[in-house]
């Protein structure tokens, strides 16, 4: 934790007395409702002492949109009450002249463009490349907050791995009636082919990206577990690199925990999963190819780890051994970090119309000659209906209380809860379990009576397919919008690795809904990202 500077605020910001009499440029003076309020964070020698109240400019002269609402704000505890760990950031930022801020913003954009951190937008004009929107202000998490998140995520991935091992083998948790059989077996990501299979080190989920949000009381809760092929980690790494270049001094003063070791840790995790008797395993990253929107990330990770980026057509399976085609002949592959969904990975075992995988790969996997990370069938544990059982799963396997809670979830398969959902459709968010990206969703507060009626029918027809959650306003963090700081909703996706042990690089990807009031952080719908600083 950094110590707060002991100097007075007005001195620190370098106000010139004559100028401030006309226009105070510091952000704290522009806060809504701060006309007669205290100046933060250090009130001993505030503007009130320096200037007679009559000379102050009215609010209208300084456009300022930082208005708090009921959502948790990352920077302000209350109106005019700055959270201590955001002090130096706000101070640094306020001291920068406006054109300097814009210059640094442009430098950051250019840096992304030059590094090729772009996604391709296909339309009539072929090959228009856009950068992933990026916000200049870091999101700051204190070390106490982080250690709880870290404990919670470690607990969660451990329990979910045990759960996967259990349901694909003995099924104790099903026999004991903790999780209903029908929830597991009716899940579209349940893979019967995995039954009775011993996976290396019993690790099903080697890489996961869990979406966390902060409730109004500031508690981190889990919104979603992504246990199949989570993406976005390349943005976490490149955001940091750019941030260090743009704000070196600020970064140093903050004592931020490093994240650059991620690729090395990922490589180590993959290596630890290699089949027995392969001391120098050949590790590859399997990508669906250049048309996939995450292709940049695949290429980036492969390059950073120094492993080969392969596509399905590069792989051949012969006698249950997987090889890649190289110019010097076939080379055996031991570990595949796959970024291709279960369905597409082997046309013989899964979807027969897929050309993204390699025929026979699943058999090679079954035979133990090649490891895939993540394993097949992990999607059953991030099913939206199963999600509601995760706290019970944690209690069952670890005999511990969950460190990180779930968002309150109503399962439409349970009669009582279904009745509650049907009676309160106008207040709840209803989600289809198999869908993602905002499809098949009803946001009660923004819906029409007709839509609700339609959804009620759907829920009654297929209760297994629907869950409901209360409308939650996740926390907001300051973002640079134009020339102003404005609050925007953010989530957090830390990346958890599980090989020999669980490792989580401190931080993750903070996604921002850049549109005012929006809760959608998805990049295709006006979302962006920002660097996440975990303090040491």
């Amino acid at each position, binding site marked *: 934790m950094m110590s707060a500077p002991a100097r007075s605020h007005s001195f620190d910001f370098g106000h010139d007395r004559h100028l401030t009499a006309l226009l105070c440029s510091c952000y704290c003076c522009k806060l809504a409702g701060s006309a007669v309020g205290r100046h933060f964070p250090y009130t001993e020698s505030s503007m009130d002492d320096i200037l007679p109240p009559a000379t102050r400019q009215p609010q209208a002269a300084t456009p300022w949109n930082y208005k708090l609402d009921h959502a948790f704000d990352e920077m302000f505890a209350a109106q005019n009450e700055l959270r201590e760990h955001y002090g130096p950031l706000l101070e640094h930022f306020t001291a920068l002249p406006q054109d300097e801020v814009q210059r640094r913003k442009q430098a950051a954009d250019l840096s992304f463009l030059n590094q*090729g951190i772009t996604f391709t937008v296909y339309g009539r004009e072929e*090959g228009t490349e856009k950068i992933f929107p990026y916000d200049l202000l870091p999101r700051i998490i204190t070390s106490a907050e982080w250690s709880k998140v870290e404990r919670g995520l470690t607990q969660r991935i451990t329990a979910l791995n045990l759960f996967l091992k259990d349901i694909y083998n003995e099924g104790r948790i099903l026999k004991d009636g903790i999780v209903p059989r029908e929830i597991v077996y009716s899940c579209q990501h349940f893979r019967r082919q995995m039954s009775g299979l011993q996976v290396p080190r019993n690790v099903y989920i080697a890489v996961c990206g869990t979406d966390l949000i902060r409730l109004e009381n500031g508690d981190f809760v889990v919104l979603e577990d992504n246990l199949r092929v989570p993406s976005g980690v390349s943005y976490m790494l490149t955001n940091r690199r750019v941030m260090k270049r743009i704000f070196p001094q600020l970064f140093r003063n903050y004592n931020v925990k490093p994240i650059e070791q991620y690729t090395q840790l990922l490589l180590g995790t993959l290596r630890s999963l290699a089949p027995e008797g392969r001391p120098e395993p050949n590790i590859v990253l399997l990508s669906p190819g250049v048309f996939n929107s995450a292709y940049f990330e695949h290429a980036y990770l492969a390059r950073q780890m120094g492993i080969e*980026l392969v596509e399905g057509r*590069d792989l051949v399976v012969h006698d249950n051994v997987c090889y890649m085609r*190289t*110019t010097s002949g*076939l080379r055996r592959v031991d570990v595949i970090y796959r970024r291709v969904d279960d369905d597409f990975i082997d046309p013989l075992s899964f979807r027969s119309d897929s050309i993204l995988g390699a025929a026979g790969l699943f058999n090679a996997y079954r035979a133990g000659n090649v490891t895939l990370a993540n394993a097949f069938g992990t999607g059953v544990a991030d099913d939206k209906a199963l999600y509601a059982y995760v706290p019970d799963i944690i209690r069952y396997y670890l005999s511990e209380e969950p460190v990180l809670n779930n968002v309150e979830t109503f399962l439409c398969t349970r009669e009582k809860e279904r009745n509650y959902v049907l009676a309160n459709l106008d207040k709840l968010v209803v989600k289809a379990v198999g869908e993602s990206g905002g499809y098949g969703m009803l946001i009660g507060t923004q819906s029409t009576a007709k839509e609700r009626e339609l959804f009620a029918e759907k829920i009654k027809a297929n209760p297994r397919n629907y869950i409901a959650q209360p409308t939650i306003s996740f926390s907001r963090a300051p973002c640079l919008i134009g020339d102003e700081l404005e609050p925007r909703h953010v989530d957090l996706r830390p990346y958890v690795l599980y090989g020999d042990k669980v490792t989580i690089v401190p931080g993750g990807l903070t996604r921002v809904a850049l549109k005012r009031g929006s809760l959608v952080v998805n990049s295709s719908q006006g979302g962006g990202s920002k660097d996440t600083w975990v303090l040491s």
Partner: protein
Amino acid sequence: MLSRVADSLYWMSRYLERAEHATRLLDVNLNLMLDESPTSSDHRWLRMLAALGNPKRLKWNGNPYELARNLTFDTSNKSSVVSCIIAARENARQVREQISTEQWQKLNSLYIEVTRPEVKRAMQIEANAESGEGPTAFLQEMMEAVHQFQGVTDSTMSHGEGWQFIQVGRYLERASGMRLLLEAYHGDVWSHPDRVPEGNEYLDWMGLLRSATAFEAYCKVYTADLTPERILEFLLLDSEFPHSLRFSIDSLQCALQAIQEKSGKTRAEELNRIAGRLSASLGFASVDEILMGDLVDYLHGIQRQCQAIHQTIYHLYVDYPIQAALAG
């Protein structure tokens, strides 16, 4: 190196070489057109199409600007210049992490430039008015961009296996383009050795040399005194000029040997043999002997050997049967 990567680099390079070659032929012929009567022009444009291998969908209809436009921009024609650039860029995109950022940016900006609709429109207006300077400036830019790409490739990419595959693609394409060019000119230049020059062949011969950027280099060796035998000797057998057939084959063989050393293929004997034989036969050939025989036959022979080299490369490095690879 992955076979797929080698394949993409090879084709990226071939397509760029092809685009450059077509651009140059077009540029040279548009220039020559200004100096001659419309009657002889039919013959020359048909000959240019023959030198490009008579691309499907491309017909001579008497309007050189229309032909130029189609040859440059018609993306329904796979051998148009823009089609080649698109194909090259697509191949580069698939191996984006294997080439340098500088290479990618150069190729990508060329691609963005040639696919801008305004460029096509501007060329159309000029062609209709026949008043503007014509597409010459655009064609010059195109060739420059390809040359810059080659320069950037040489100075920013490791000269490892991938770079060698780029060389293989470039020189195989260049050899095959030169073979077609010589064949197209055969009827006019070498088929009647006893014919006395009428005096107006000079422009035509100069055009042939320019089509291979060889005019200045030729003059340094033989002075500006152009004769059919010397032209053939220079374009076919010169050991130092980078567009001569012999130079292309020598470079090709060099790159293949480097690849073989790097990939440690023991089964590369066949490839060595055919590439080495072709290289040696060009090294020890004499132009008089070639002209005494049937030149077209001779050129066809070279083409067959180039094809064999291409197939053997594929069989060895890219599309090999699994059983053979497992055996050794």
